[in-house]
C-alpha cells in the first residue's frame, strides 16, 4: 500500500506492505539507519522517533499508522548545513556519548521533552528518558546535556523576546 507522510520536514510516499513496523519502513525503505533496532518489543527505546510531537517506539507502530502524520528521525535533527544542533552539540560537550547505539534515540527523547517542557527539572529529564535504555553512560551526562540545552534555549528566548 502507499503510505504518505511527512518525514523529516519533507512530504514522502512509500509503497510498502501494510504489516511492517515504522522501524522497518524507516530502515529498509528509506535507509534511515540512525533509528536502531534493540529489542522489537518497545522496551529499550533505541528505535524512538518523534511522531507529530511525541516520542514513540517505532517498533511498536505499524507503518500505515503514520499516514498523513509527521515523523522526525535523528536524520531530521540538525543545525544549519548538516552540523549538529545545540542539543547534539551538548551531548558531545558533556561527554554523554559512549558506544553511541542509544544516542540517536536519546537525542530525540530530549527534543520531545523540550517541545512540551522547556524548563524541565533533572527529575523530569530522567523521567522523560526512562523509556530509553543506555547500558554505558549511567545517564548522568545525558541529563547534563539536556539540562544545559534547556537552559540555553530559554536564555535565548528571553534575549530574543
Amino acid at each position, binding site marked *: 500500500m502507499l503510505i504518505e507522510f511527512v518525514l523529516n520536514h519533507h512530504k514522502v510516499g512509500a509503497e510498502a506492505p501494510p504489516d511492517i513496523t515504522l522501524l*522497518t519502513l524507516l530502515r529498509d525503505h528509506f*535507509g534511515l539507519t540512525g533509528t536502531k533496532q534493540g529489542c522489537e518489543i518497545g522496551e529499550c527505546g533505541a528505535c524512538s522517533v518523534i511522531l507529530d510531537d511525541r516520542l514513540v517506539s517505532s517498533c511498536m507502530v505499524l507503518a500505515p499508522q503514520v499516514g498523513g502524520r509527521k515523523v522526525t528521525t535523528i536524520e531530521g535533527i540538525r543545525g544549519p548545513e548538516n552540523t549538529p544542533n545545540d542539543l547534539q552539540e551538548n551531548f558531545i560537550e558533556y561527554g554523554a556519548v*559512549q558506544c553511541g547505539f542509544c544516542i*540517536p534515540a536519546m537525542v530525540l527523547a530530549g527534543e520531545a521533552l523540550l517541545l512540551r517542557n522547556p524548563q524541565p527539572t*533533572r527529575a523530569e529529564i530522567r523521567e522523560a528518558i526512562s523509556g530509553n535504555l543506555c547500558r554505558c553512560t549511567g*545517564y548522568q551526562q545525558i541529563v547534563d546535556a539536556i539540562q544545559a540545552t534547556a537552559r540555553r534555549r530559554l536564555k535565548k528566548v528571553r534575549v530574543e523576546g
Partner: protein
Amino acid sequence: MTKVQSIGKPARRVDALEKVLGTAKYLGDYKLPAMLYARALRSEQPHAKIRSLDVKPALAVPGVQAVVTGDDFVDHGLYGFPTKDKYMLAYQKVRYVGEAIAAVAAETPEAALEGIRAIRCELDPLPLLLDMDHALDPDAPQVGPERGDGQHPNFLDLSKVRLGEPLSILETCAVTLDQEYRTDHQEHAYLETEGALAIPTPEKGILVYCSNQSPFINRGYLAMVLGLPLDQVRVIQPPVGGSFGGKDDLNYETSAQVAALAIKTGRPVQMTFSRDESMVASYKRDAMHMRVRLGADSGGTLRACKFEGTLDSGAYASQSPFTGWRASIHAMGPYRYEACDVDITGVYTNNGFSGAFRGFGNPEVTFAIEQAIDEMADRLGLDPIDFRLKNCLRAGDETPHGQRLTEAVGLTECLKKVRQMSDWVRKRRDFPAQNAASAIRKGIGVAAFFHGLSMGAEGEDSASSTIKIEDTDTITLTSGLTDYGTGSRTVFTLIAAEELGVRPERIQMLRPDTNTSIDSGATVASRSTIVGGNATGAAARSLAQMLDLAAANLFACQPSQLSRDGEAYVGPDEKPVAWEQVVEHARRMGLVLSAQSRWSSPAIHWDSKTGRGMPYIDFHYGAQVVEVAVDMGTGKTDVSGVWAAHDAGKILFPQGAYGQVYGGITQGLGYALLEQVIFDRGYLQATNYDEYLIPTAMDVPDIQAAFIDTHSSIGPFGAKNIGEPALVPAAPAALNAIAHATGKRIRELPANLERVLLGHDLQRPGGTTSCKLGLHIRSIG
C-alpha cells in the same frame, strides 16, 4: 609561549559527532549488493547428543543458498583460549540451550528462518548438571570434555593464593566470621546485539566486519577454522554498540559461520541477532558460591582470611580460567593479613555458558569480601570505614600474594574522600534513629576494593600503535585495540596530541583493521589506556623526534634549543614557525614522517603452584558509598545517593573517565538490585528487556565522583585503568547500605523486592522451558 596541552583537559570524544548525528554505521546498518542473510539453528536442549543432522531439506527451501555445519571447518571448528573446548558449530553434542548447530544463508531473513525450520536435527537428551556445588560429585553428569590427568571432567580450573596458615590463626582470633555469599550470572545487555558480515574476496580469502572486541583474535580463529593463511583473512572493526566483555567468543563463532557461508556462496553474508537470540545464546558473567572466614584481634586488626569459591562456567570454559584467576587474586580484598588462603574452583554445568564481563571475577569476590568486612566491623563494634582504614593496603606494604607495593596506593585517601563527600558520619549515626518511626528506612554503606592493572600474569601484555603524517598534514593514528564505547580512541588521540604538541583535531584515530593496524592482543582487562596508551605515546615521541630534527635544521640550532608556541616551533631567534612549515621542511630533508611502536608490560611473575608472586604491575584502588531508602512495605530499594572516589592515577580524558565511573556504577547497581539471570533446568527465563531489567535513568541518582590525584610510574602520563574498576564495589556497597537500613543482611544477588522484604525467593510453580526460548518464533529483520 606554551605548547598545546591536551591531557587532562576538556576534550571531545573523537567518534561523538557521527554518533549524535546518527550517521555512525554499526554492523546491522550495512547493506551490500547481493548480500545474503544468515541465521543459526540453535539447540533447544540444555544437554544432548546429536543423533542426526540432515541439512538437505533446508537447501530445498526457496531462497536458501547454503547451509554450513561443523563439518565445514577444520577440526570441526574446535576453538577457545585458554581452554580449547568449544566448536564454531556444535559437534556431536550440545551442552547449553542456544548453542549453534548449523547456519543457513538465504536471500531474505524470512527464507533463512524457513531454512532453519527445515533442518532435521535429532537430539537425544543427556542428564543435566545444574548445580555447581555438585559438579564434581563422582556421579555428576559429565558436561566437560574427557581429560587425561585424572581430574573430574567437570573440573575446569583451580586458582589459589597462599600465605601462611589461616585456619590455625583463625582458632586464636578474638573475633571471627564464617559466612557464605552467592552471586548470580549477569547479562551484558549491550544495546547492539551480536553480528558479523563476511565478504568473499577475489583472492579466495575473506573480509569480515564484526562488532567484536578483539579483531586480531577473530582473524586468528578464522584462519584456523577456515584453513586460510592469515594474510587471506581481514577483519575490520565497525563502531561497536557496547560490549563490556561480551563480544568475544560468540561473535567469533558468528564470524566463522558467515565466513564459511560467504565462501560457499561467493556472496556477502550478514548475520545479526534478535534480542532473544542474543540473550539466550550469549555467555554471561559467571555465578559464584563463596565461603569466607575472617579473623581479627579484639582491637580490630585483621589477621586471617580463608576464602573458598566455586565458579559456574556453564557449558564451556570461555574466559573462565582467567576469570577465576583474577577472582582469586582479589578475593581477600585490599587488606593486610598474617595469613590468607584463597581457592577458586571453576566447574562446568549446563547453565548457559560464562565468559568475560566487566570486572572479570572481581565484582563477584568483592561482593563477598566487602560484605564480610562489614559484618566483621559490626562484630567488633567499629565503624565500617574506620575498620577498613585500619587494615587497608598502603604504599610499601606487601600484599597477601607477596607483592611489594612500590607505587602510590590511594586507597586511604579514597576512603576518607567518600566519607567526607557522603556526610557519612552523620548519616551512619542519624539514620537508625530516624528509621525507627518510618516505613521508609534509610541506610548507607561502603565498599573498598583494588583491581589489578591490565592482564597481569594471565599472559603476554603488549600493544602496538602506528602514526603517520599524511600529505594533507593530518595525522593518522592506529592501534590494534578496539574502542567499543570506552573512549580509548579519544585517549590515544590525546596522548599523541600531547606528545606531538598539536591540536587533537589534527589527528585521525582509525578503528582497528587487521590489514592496517598491528596485532595488539585482546582488548580486555581495562588495558587500553596503559598498554595501548604507552605504545601510542612511544610512536608519537618517535615521530616528534623527526620534527624536532627538522625544526632544528630549519633554525640552525640544537633540538634542545627549541620551544613551542601553540603548535608552532620556536628557535633561538624567538620567531615562531608554523607546524606545517616544519613538516614541509622535514619532507624536503627526506625524513620519514611515520613511526610505529610496541610497548610491553614490565615482567611479572606468578607461581600457580605455590599461589605466590607478583600478579599485577600495579593496582587501581577505590571506594564507593551508596545510600538507600528501603520501603518496608514492599521491599523496594531506592538508591538515593552514590559517592565514588577512585585512584586511577592521572586522568587523561576527564569526561570519559567520569562517564566510565557513572556507567560502571549503574551496571553495578543493576547487578545489586535488579538483574536476575535464572536458568530453569538449563533454560534462560528472561530473554528480553521486559523481563531482564537493567537500570533506567530513574533507577539511579546523580552520582558524585572524585579522582584521587596519584601518579603511576608505568602508565602514560601517570595514568592507570578505569573501565572495569568503576563497577566492582557498587553491589556490596548497596547491600551494606540495605543491611544498615533494615538490620537484615542479604548475602545473595540481586537484592530484589522478595529478598529484601521476605528474606527469601518466592516459589515459581510450574516451570517454563522451551516456550521461553522464542528462537524459532520471533523473526529477525
